[in-house]
């Protein structure tokens, strides 16, 4: 694919839910791109629309009550214009996903082997024996010991880490171009998380898939992402290459998040160190927010913040933020 054409281009994505007490603007005008082979992290606190964004890309949002608008161009095709049948052919093949809790996406009454073989046979039209062989290879690839024996086991017989490996095996079965991973390690212990992150990074290198990694964990972001998009209350508020975002965050929300996470080692250097608090809570998505979505909690908010929605402007090379008061760095000569 030519360098200029992104693998995925999302334009003005709006996913709203009709609820008894109003419209929930879960995703409210979000645009971003993903290049072939790159890892984009989507971060933000719970309820800010990360999972709904992921589900929208896969068109797995229940409609109704949900409604998706905008454009989702995947390899140049608008996924929102496809029939459900066409979408099914893409899902699990070129576009696949892993979720936080593999138990909800693995079928509890089917063996691991059956679920892997089915994915392969559905998309690759291979015969039973080939599917069996490839399934075992996949389990080996994701580091599941005694893969042959595991084929006949059920999801509940595996530990959380092993189940997540199986999910990854299924997601990678058809060598997807894009893998959407929604909090893939959140339910795991750090030691197992480290194994899974290593595995994902390694497989990505081998298969060349791009990854959209959704997480609330800034440590995970720093470790695996190349680019980061920060979401707040259904909107994208900042995007930058990972090093720039952590070194010089532009949006007060991003600055707040980075100040609020305790860091290993910090309290050893400064015993009096206090965590930065972001006062208040995320606003309800059911009221239309005039102005900046963060204005209610922002230490720098002024009248203009409450009146006009800030545009996502370039604040530094490859670095955009939606804030009226964020300084713009002079472009490097």
């Amino acid at each position, binding site marked *: 694919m030519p360098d200029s054409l992104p693998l995925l281009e999302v334009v003005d994505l709006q996913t709203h839910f009709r609820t008894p007490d109003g419209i929930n603007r879960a995703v409210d005008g979000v645009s971003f791109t993903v290049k072939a082979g790159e890892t984009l992290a989507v971060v933000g*606190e*719970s309820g800010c629309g990360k999972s709904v964004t992921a589900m929208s890309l896969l068109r797995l949002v229940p409609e109704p009550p949900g409604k998706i608008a905008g454009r989702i161009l995947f390899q140049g095709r608008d996924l929102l214009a496809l029939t459900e049948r066409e979408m099914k052919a893409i899902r699990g093949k070129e576009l696949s996903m892993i979720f936080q809790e593999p138990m909800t996406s693995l079928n509890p009454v089917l063996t691991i082997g059956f679920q892997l073989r089915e994915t392969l046979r559905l998309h690759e039209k291979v015969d039973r024996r080939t599917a069996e062989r490839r399934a075992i290879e996949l389990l080996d690839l994701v580091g599941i*010991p005694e893969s042959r024996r595991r084929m006949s086991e059920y999801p509940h017989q595996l*530990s959380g*880490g*092993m189940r997540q490996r199986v999910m990854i095996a299924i997601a990678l079965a058809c060598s997807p171009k894009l893998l959407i991973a929604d909090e893939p390690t959140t339910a795991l*212990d*750090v*030691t*197992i*998380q*480290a*194994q899974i*992150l*290593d595995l994902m990074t390694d497989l990505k290198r081998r298969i060349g898939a791009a990854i959209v990694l959704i997480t*609330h*964990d*800034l*440590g*995970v*972001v*720093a*470790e695996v992402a190349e680019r980061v998009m920060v979401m707040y209350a259904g909107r994208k508020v900042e995007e930058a290459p*990972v*090093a720039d975002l*952590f070194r010089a965050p532009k949006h007060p929300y991003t600055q*707040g*998040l*980075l*100040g*609020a*996470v*305790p*860091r*290993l*080692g*910090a*309290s*050893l250097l400064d015993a009096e*160190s*206090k*965590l*930065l*608090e*972001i*006062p208040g*809570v*995320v606003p309800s998505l059911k009221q239309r927010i005039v102005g900046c979505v963060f204005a209610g909690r922002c230490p720098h908010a002024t009248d203009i913040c409450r009146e006009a929605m800030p545009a996502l402007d370039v604040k530094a090379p490859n670095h955009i933020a939606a804030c009226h008061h964020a300084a713009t760095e002079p472009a490097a000569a």
Partner: protein
Amino acid sequence: MSRPLLEVNDLKKYFPIKGGLLGGIKAQVHAVDGVSFHVSRGETLSLVGESGCGKSTVGRAILGLFDITAGQVVLDGKRIDQLSARVLRPLRRRMQVVFQDPFSSLNPRMKVRDIIAEPVRNFGLATSKADLEHKIRAVAELVRLPQDALGRWPHEFSGGQRQRIGIARALAAEPDLIICDEAVSALDVSVKAQIVNLLQELQKQLGLALLFISHDLAVVEHMTHRVAVMYLGRIVEMAPKREIFAAPRHPYTSALLSAVPVPEPATDRRRVVLKGDVPSPINLPSGCRFHTRCPYAFDRCRVEDPELRLSDKDHFVACHLQQPGLAGVAGVAVGQD
């Protein structure tokens, strides 16, 4: 110095697994298998370790929520693990608990005012109606709940505010010790910071002792004075925080710390990736429980169970590499840099 506020001596808790035709005891989960520590007044001791290592079971044993298999729990010099519910009651006031999910532990049919009033009434802490009202308001103020919150229901609050209500209820009993079992684990970053700061301030202000149970090592480092690292029902290392985080001596502690992702891109850290999962607490490994995953395991580890021994001032380690005569090898422990 007088005795510590809380002492736990060689605590064991095995859960029987029933099975077989006659429903007899088939096996046992060795949830906690010989754990000893103390917590002093005004001190925070943290229990850390992977899920299933027995942290919550230790907390629940201290609170007397079940009969323990063996060992002692001593509060202020008085053994409390075999007391009847009636005798234990007034002592239980001195130990309160805050859980991860305050919602499931807050009665949805009680207004916040009544939730906070309950321990004050139950333990007879108020001298009059006016005093009760005064105490409720004082506690709400301590945890920075707005006064109008008192007339509302738990479901009207966000996760962080509910956790404040949970803390308020604990404080209303005027405890000496609060056991925080993953009390901030489910909260979002910004709200977590609010609650962590609150707990630290309350501790200073009220001289509370905290037993802080958490799997979040960065939060623990921020909060704690001392740390006990647990693995499969045992403490494998216990030391002041600086020692644990800057110079860990048990290979498990090193591995655990090195697995924490740090929010700084492009930091080149040496990571000790532990292979595989934690073994089952039903069929424990022979020798050192950690030997199946330990990168430094040698013959002795597979046969001999290392004791938790003093390896330096206030620093306890259960590892054969730390035994006298092997001091040189101790340097293998991988620190953070």
